């Protein structure tokens, strides 16, 4: 055994000496995602998208002449498992940590990375947040080594309201119906804040229990009583489906503006009930057809399905990382994460939806958003139904951008 190790290390050394020009160690990127249990479906989408784009980066030569190694860790759905796996990833040599499917986990990972970097100056790791949309991740909890490549509540709500207002479907009376936790409260606050700018009144605001309500009819009655034209909601999963179904069952004539209507299964479950409702998301397959069609087909040929929900924006975030990696020189032990952080702040990537970039002030991605409507006329149908998403308005990255939160006090190195 000892002899074999010796022989192996000698061989490795010989290789390393012979190939110093080609770079020493492959860059390791760790995906710490929910890959098992009840919330695994979203985690697996992130995994598909990350694997797809890492494959593209490696086809284009990888980093420092070596293919990038993607390490996968299962955070078991919660912050405790994530804290464990972040430690494991760092001790396995990962320089970049990717995660997206839950803000609770994101809150843990970003703090773990911050503390690790404080204790191990000169040996930093980077956290790329692919989808934790809670405002405080780029607010009170923002720090230099956290980068968010997905939109957040402010971007979602403001682009949604802008798009609906321009399309003339917003109406004068808006009802804010949200889940009673940080995400729902963020959505509600942003809806109320936009009222003066867009000239509507928020007739009522409701915060309800998260994923506990089976019968939404009392809430629908309140919408009816308030005489709302539009309901703006950050609800997801069952809370969104049951609310829409209950409204449709009561014969209520309101339009829903949503953030997560494109979650796989939603359109399949809601069917015609979802028709005419709106969504603001960073991707629509009918925008920029000449580029997007190629991306759609290529993605399908690799993963077996068209990109949807969080997958496109994850791919775009990885494109941004790819551009940043091009600007970084590999060092002897792989990669200096501080260099990559600087490069990421200056990176821009051309995606099928337009140009995306990273804002240096709070490390929130600035990306185009597409306001879209559920319609039978869509080219790409969702969940094998006759419905899909038709783009109503493409909001360019600089128009979708929202101000930096005052609570973000980022300490920059040096």
């Amino acid at each position, binding site marked *: 055994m000892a002899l074999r190790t010796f022989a192996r290390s000698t061989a490795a050394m010989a290789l390393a000496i012979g190939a110093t020009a080609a770079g020493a160690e492959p860059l390791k990127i760790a995906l710490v995602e929910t*890959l098992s249990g009840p919330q695994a479906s979203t985690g697996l989408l992130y995994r598909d998208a990350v694997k797809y784009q890492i494959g593209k980066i490696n086809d284009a030569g990888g980093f420092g002449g070596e293919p990038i190694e993607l390490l996968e860790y*299962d955070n078991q759905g919660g912050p*405790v498992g994530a804290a464990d796996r972040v430690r*494991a990833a760092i001790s396995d040599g990962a320089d970049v940590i990717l995660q997206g499917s839950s803000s*609770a986990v994101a*809150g*843990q990972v970003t*703090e*773990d990375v911050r503390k690790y970097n404080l204790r191990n100056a000169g040996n930093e790791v980077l956290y790329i947040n692919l989808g934790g949309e809670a405002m405080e991740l780029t607010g009170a909890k923002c720090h230099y080594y956290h980068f968010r490549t997905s939109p957040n509540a402010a971007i979602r709500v403001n682009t949604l309201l802008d798009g609906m207002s321009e399309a003339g479907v917003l109406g004068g009376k808006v009802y804010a119906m949200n889940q009673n936790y940080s995400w729902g409260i963020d959505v509600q606050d942003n809806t109320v804040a936009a009222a003066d700018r867009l000239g509507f009144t928020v007739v009522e605001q409701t915060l309800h229990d998260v994923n506990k309500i089976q019968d939404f009819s009392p809430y629908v009655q309140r919408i009816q009583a308030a005489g709302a034209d539009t309901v703006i909601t950050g609800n997801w999963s069952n809370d969104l489906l049951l609310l829409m179904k209950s409204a449709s069952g009561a014969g209520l004539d309101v339009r829903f503006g949503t953030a997560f209507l494109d979650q796989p299964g939603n359109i399949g479950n809601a069917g015609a009930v979802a028709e005419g409702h709106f969504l603001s998301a960073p991707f629509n397959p009918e925008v920029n057809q000449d580029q997007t069609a190629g991306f759609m087909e290529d993605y399908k040929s690799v993963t077996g399905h068209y990109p949807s929900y969080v997958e496109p924006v994850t791919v775009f975030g990885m494109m941004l990382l790819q551009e940043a990696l091009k600007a970084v020189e590999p060092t002897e032990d792989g990669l200096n994460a501080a260099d990559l952080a600087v490069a990421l702040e200056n990176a821009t990537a051309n995606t099928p939806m337009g140009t995306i970039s990273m804002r240096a002030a709070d490390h929130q991605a600035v990306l185009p958003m597409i306001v879209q409507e559920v319609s039978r006329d869509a080219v790409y149908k969702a969940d094998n139904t006759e419905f899909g998403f038709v783009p109503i308005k493409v909001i360019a990255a600089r128009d979708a951008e929202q101000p930096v939160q005052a609570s973000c006090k980022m300490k920059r190195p040096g």
Partner: protein
Amino acid sequence: MKFAPLLLLATVALLIALPWLVSGSMLNAAVQMLIAALFAMAFGLLCGQAGMLSFGHAAYFGVGAFAAVHAMNAFGGAGLLPTPLLPLVGGATGLISGLVAGYFSTKRTGVYFAMITLALAELLHALASHLKAVFGGEAGVSSFRMPAWGIGFGSLTDVYFLTLVWTLLCIGLLYLFSKTPLGRITLGLRENAHRLRFLGYNTHALGTLIFAISAMFAGIAGALQSMNIEAANYVVLESHISTAVVLNSFIGGVRVFLGPAIGGAVMTFFGYVTSDLTRVWLLYQGIIFVLVMMFLPRGLVGELVERLRHRSGQGVARSLGATLLRLLCLAVAAAGAVFLIEFLQRFLSSEYRAGVSEGNWPAISLFSYDWAPLSVLPWAVGLGLFGLGIALVVTVNRRVADRQEAQA
């Protein structure tokens, strides 16, 4: 049983030497195992010794975790509460909340008791997401372990020793408690609460006290957890944390003293290792629980203790031989089952379906061989191994039974 103290000493020595023996990742697992062991022991006191099945122990674990994280932020690891003493805060809040919750829930017994504990835990969980100031909202409350007493508490080894000292201390205290008169009456509460009342004991006060002590140790475990990850998030109050401790304790054996601790440690280790190897580790965990409940209802440790206690006329060597033979046959069956499950999981995965085109079924790579899904071979290997293993176990069992009959 003269070798018991020796065994104990050897285990403690091994635990102390662990940081120099295993990798960082395994040491991390060891910290989790210790915390799970202490949490399960706290649950075991209530469920195993006092016979009260609580379905809401996550509440006291979570209360301890949040108390510790807030204390960590308030004191900064200095002054009255230096970092190593922070679990005391978790214990104190656990004790107080346990007294309150215990007062209500121990008014009833059996199923009603379980329902009340479940309801109280869910109440706290539902409240937690609304009280952002206390529970930190979706992103949780985070903190920073400060150096104290000349120890940095930055490295994993420091955290490991902190957890180890607290866990051993608490398990020691629980052992001593079980030897006190109060600890003996606890067993009476489980066996026959009515008779205890006729003897003049106040069973409600007794139940409340036991509940509070159990909650106190759960709180200490929660505090250790939030010190380990330097944060607390309201997902620790979710019901699956409560059910996990029930499963762990029962797998270990809830009625023997160290049963819950070993169950907690073993199942945490199992999850830690398998979750990176396979996506369906939760299925295996469930299968293990069902099998343990069906064939070893006393739990792993409970069964072991029982076997050692009732050594029959036949020699130890022979019964050990039969057990080893059974385990070997079971391993064959398990290999077959694992092969089948893993093969099916890959066969049904979306990645595989992406590669399937008209009439073309690519081979599936599993255990460093490529298997064609349409051929008989992989299915025969899986089913064959499984069937062979089961058949062998049945044969061994029959032989052992025959021999016992012949001797009788």
